[in-house]
């Protein structure tokens, strides 16, 4: 029976009413009396020496308040990087300075050079056109392998090269891994590209800076997944504002997918300029600006190899990856190809020896950082493509090869430094076979063939790691932050309560889900619980929402704070009921004495806490408010199996997604409706990456896919109804809710299934091409099937990054 409230119920989302009626409060909806607007003049060349920025004519234009250039920020700190990776030789990564406004050099198209603050945005833009910028263009480095060659132009003149770090993991295993390859009965090798993407939350970034002279308080309203992190990074490292003088507010956030984790120059600028101009300063990104200023995602070039013994057991994996950092180190960029990628390379398999090498490279492109999944999609894609390729080389069923190598005993310590607590990979695979109707595939293939189309079935497994922790471990790995979460539960006299959580929602529905948990723990109606997030003045501390950590880490902090509330309320109840505390039971919102009919309602206890007339004042303080910090002892490990069915038109190369099935194990689930929605959204992004999305630069560093005309965003007609199941549940053993997290799974698990399906379709048409890179556009598929030569003429005509034409 579906529940109608509490944990496990598909409660309707309370946030929906405001979003459906236009009453949401997004950052761009905030306008402060007297605000001025800023327009950023951005570099239109990828690499050059910035000789002069002449603002003299622009200064006199109508409405101009003040124009800022790099020189105004010389005394201001560098935009900081939050993670320091140590390379194979024990040396720290190379870490360049990242100015708020370019100074001396420009290093990517879109880097801000000057900022015009004016009465209106139109006036700011007009004045920016009158600024004269003198740049001596330098050769740009775009290709990673070119960038690390001797004599390549250097992105940062003060660094020794364009190599940020050369990371080996686990370095001590390297020789043993090489030996396993020497001894292998079969080796499968794959070279592939994990295509560069732009996260594209539908709400562009916005920042509004405000400053109050009366109490020397700065306020920044910003589109952020983690306002406390922005407060710390910007306050402490860039502007030198102590945290108690700086409030950061992120109201309703219109999607993030990682790209709103990071601290950006525009936030620091608006906060700085509000004081310098003595008036609020607002910036709203246009979509065109977003493409050249939001951190991009993925962009790995990898060679991966699998060694197998004579019985098809995996004996070793070896990888060699180039990871693009872009021109500067965005907040968590160095951690993505290393600790969020290398540690996942075991996947679902008991491969005893693994060695991962990652070279992170600076190029004259927009900085690259975490995008939904961050490192884990890259790991899953290479591994699951590799295993599929191995199965075809060996002539065995790809599902059975996976099954044979599954990890089946838990806890399981991988050779890449993590310990999976729970999982049941056979169960999710069995569920996948059922919900994908694998049995009916051959019949569907015949139907497609009767229409002159090819049909393919592809699948893969995945493992995720969410809620990266504990803090003392990640500190050793280079994190410059803790990765706990906090929650404060404030109960009011009449029994309603507010949870102030350091997690933040950018579409995940925390106001609903978090309320369900607390309401169930106390036994009160969900409507008695309010969730407050996204404001450093209201929430004591927070690390925010990313890495599918909110319920596993933020939810756990909330549970711990609620447990403290319940413990104190029991003390009060025992006094009111004149019974021993150990005999008090809380059920359905009432405290009773075990084995009697004596009870007192939740509301009577909360009233007593604030009107303590009959109250054990000598034992406990009045009031009912508790805070907890929760630092997890391990990651959580969701897992699953996904299957995709495609139809391919051999005449055009056009691929359509006909069916997609996802069987996930997220441990316990709080709100199944919301979890299913998270999987849907992740699938669309993963399928988008596999099928159509691509962020492309030309060799001069011009971004070719810089608007929705050129960057193929998945539309409703590109996607099918999905079949999603999360009934396989192996609860997490180390957090109080037994939850694992679900936000990124869809994006991690889906790209290999799509590509495996496309290759299967081609094989059924007599073309075994071995591999095809994402996105599998019609031009690429057609070229793979008909040969590169035939394609050259065709690509010249239609462009290789074009969105597939609708039929």
């Amino acid at each position, binding site marked *: 029976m579906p529940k109608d409230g509490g944990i496990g119920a598909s409660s309707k989302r309370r946030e*929906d009413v405001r979003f459906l009626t236009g009453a949401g409060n997004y950052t761009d909806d905030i306008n402060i009396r007297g605000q001025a607007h800023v327009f950023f003049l951005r570099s239109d060349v990828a690499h050059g020496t910035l000789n002069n920025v002449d603002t003299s004519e622009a200064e006199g234009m109508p409405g101009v308040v003040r124009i800022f250039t790099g020189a105004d920020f010389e005394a201001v700190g560098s935009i900081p990087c939050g993670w320091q990776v140590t390379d194979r030789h024990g040396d720290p990564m190379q870490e360049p300075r990242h100015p708020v406004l370019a100074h001396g050099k420009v290093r990517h198209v879109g880097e801000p050079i000057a900022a015009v603050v004016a009465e209106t945005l139109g006036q700011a833009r007009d004045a920016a056109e009158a600024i004269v910028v003198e740049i001596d263009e330098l050769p740009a480095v775009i290709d990673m392998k070119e960038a690390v060659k001797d004599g390549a132009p250097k992105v940062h003149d003060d660094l020794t090269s364009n190599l940020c770090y050369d990371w080996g993991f686990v370095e001590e295993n390297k020789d043993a891994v090489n030996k396993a390859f020497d001894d292998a009965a079969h080796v499968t090798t794959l070279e592939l590209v994990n295509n560069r993407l732009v996260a594209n939350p*539908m709400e562009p970034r916005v920042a509004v800076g405000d400053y109050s002279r009366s109490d020397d308080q700065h306020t920044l309203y910003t589109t952020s997944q983690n306002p406390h992190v922005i407060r710390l990074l910007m306050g402490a490292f860039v502007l030198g504002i102590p945290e108690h003088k700086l409030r950061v507010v992120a109201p309703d956030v219109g999607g993030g997918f990682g790209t709103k984790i990071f601290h950006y120059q525009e936030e620091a600028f608006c906060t700085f300029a509000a004081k310098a101009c003595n008036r609020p300063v607002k910036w709203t990104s246009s979509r065109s600006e977003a493409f050249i200023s939001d951190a991009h995602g993925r962009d790995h070039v990898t060679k991966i190899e699998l060694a197998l013994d004579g019985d098809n057991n995996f004996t070793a994996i070896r990888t060699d990856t180039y990871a693009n950092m872009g021109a500067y180190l965005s907040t968590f960029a160095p951690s993505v190809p290393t600790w969020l990628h290398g540690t996942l390379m075991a996947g679902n398999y008991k491969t005893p020896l693994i060695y991962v090498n990652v070279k992170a490279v600076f190029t004259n492109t927009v900085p690259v950082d975490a995008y939904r999944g961050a490192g884990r999609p890259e790991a899953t894609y290479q591994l699951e493509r590799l295993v599929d390729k191995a199965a075809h080389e060996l002539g065995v069923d790809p599902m059975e090869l996976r099954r044979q190598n599954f990890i089946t005993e838990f806890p399981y310590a991988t050779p890449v430094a993590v310990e999976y607590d729970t999982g049941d990979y056979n169960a999710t695979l069995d569920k996948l076979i059922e919900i994908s109707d694998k049995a009916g595939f051959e019949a569907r293939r015949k139907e497609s063939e009767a229409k002159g189309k090819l049909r393919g079935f592809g699948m893969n497994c995945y493992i995720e790691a969410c809620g990266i922790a504990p803090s003392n471990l990640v500190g050793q790995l280079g994190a410059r932050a803790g990765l706990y979460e906090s929650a404060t539960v404030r109960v009011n006299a009449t029994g309603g309560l507010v949870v102030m959580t350091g997690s933040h929602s950018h579409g995940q529905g925390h106001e609903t889900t978090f309320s369900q948990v607390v309401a169930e723990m106390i036994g009160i109606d969900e409507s008695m619980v309010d969730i407050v997030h996204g404001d450093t003045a209201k929430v004591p501390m927070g690390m925010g929402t990313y890495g599918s950590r909110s319920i596993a880490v933020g939810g756990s902090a909330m549970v711990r704070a609620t447990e403290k509330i319940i413990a104190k309320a029991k003390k009060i109840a025992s006094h009111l009921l004149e019974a021993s505390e150990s005999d008090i039971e809380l059920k359905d919102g009432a405290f009773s004495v075990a084995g009697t009919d004596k009870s007192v309602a939740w509301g009577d206890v909360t009233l007593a806490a604030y009107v303590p007339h009959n109250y054990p004042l000598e034992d406990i303080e009045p009031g009912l408010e508790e805070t907890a910090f929760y630092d997890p002892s391990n990651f959580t490990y969701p897992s699953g199996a996904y299957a995709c069915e495609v139809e391919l038109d051999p005449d055009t190369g056009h691929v359509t997604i006909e069916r997609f099935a996802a069987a996930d194990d997220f441990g316990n689930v709080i709100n199944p409706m919301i979890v299913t929605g998270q999987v849907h959204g992740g699938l669309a992004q993963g399928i988008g990456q596999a099928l159509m999305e691509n962020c492309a630069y030309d060799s001069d560093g011009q971004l070719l896919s810089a608007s929705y005309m050129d960057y193929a965003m998945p539309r409703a007609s590109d996607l099918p109804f999905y079949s999603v199941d999360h009934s396989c549940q192996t609860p997490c053993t180390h957090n109080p809710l037994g939850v694992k997290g679900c936000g990124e799974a869809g994006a991690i698990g889906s790209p290999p299934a799509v590509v495996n399906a496309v290759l299967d379709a081609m094989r059924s048409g007599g073309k075994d091409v071995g591999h095809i890179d994402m996105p599998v556009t019609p031009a690429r598929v057609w070229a793979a099937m008909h040969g590169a030569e035939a394609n050259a003429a065709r690509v010249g005509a239609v462009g290789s990054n074009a969105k597939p034409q609708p039929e």
Partner: protein
Amino acid sequence: MAQVKMTVNGKAASGEVEGRTLLAHFLRDDLGLTGTHIGCDTSQCGACVVHVNGEAVKACSMLALEAEGAEVSTIEGQANADGSLNVIQQAFQDHHGLQCGFCTPGMVMSTAALLKDNPKPSEAEIRHYLDGNICRCTGYHNIVKAIMAASGQDTGQIAAE
């Protein structure tokens, strides 16, 4: 600057605008109707869809002055008279057809326009019609489902929640 007058959600509205002011900016900045969102600058995302004289229009692709004398309706005017959600809005909530909510006003306004012309659209017709409305959160599954439900169609066969 020029004077512009129109009717917005049944009420007279006017303001001083520049020739280049877009209807989307006039609604948001001058009238404070911030439910109309701006998600792109190439008229492709559909976050800004409103109705002008009964037709769905991207408010970022029309100048405020072009709406002189027009009847404009926005997401703020869609709920029932008693403030409850209308059939489309309620279907979006019931079927979890929104996550971050940023595309949602445009989705609701486009749906209203679709159902006016085609009261029982098929799945394929819905997906085709939404070509001008991008959602990055939901993967469209629950949006399509909500639109089918709002038009009184059985959604029981569509994969589970």
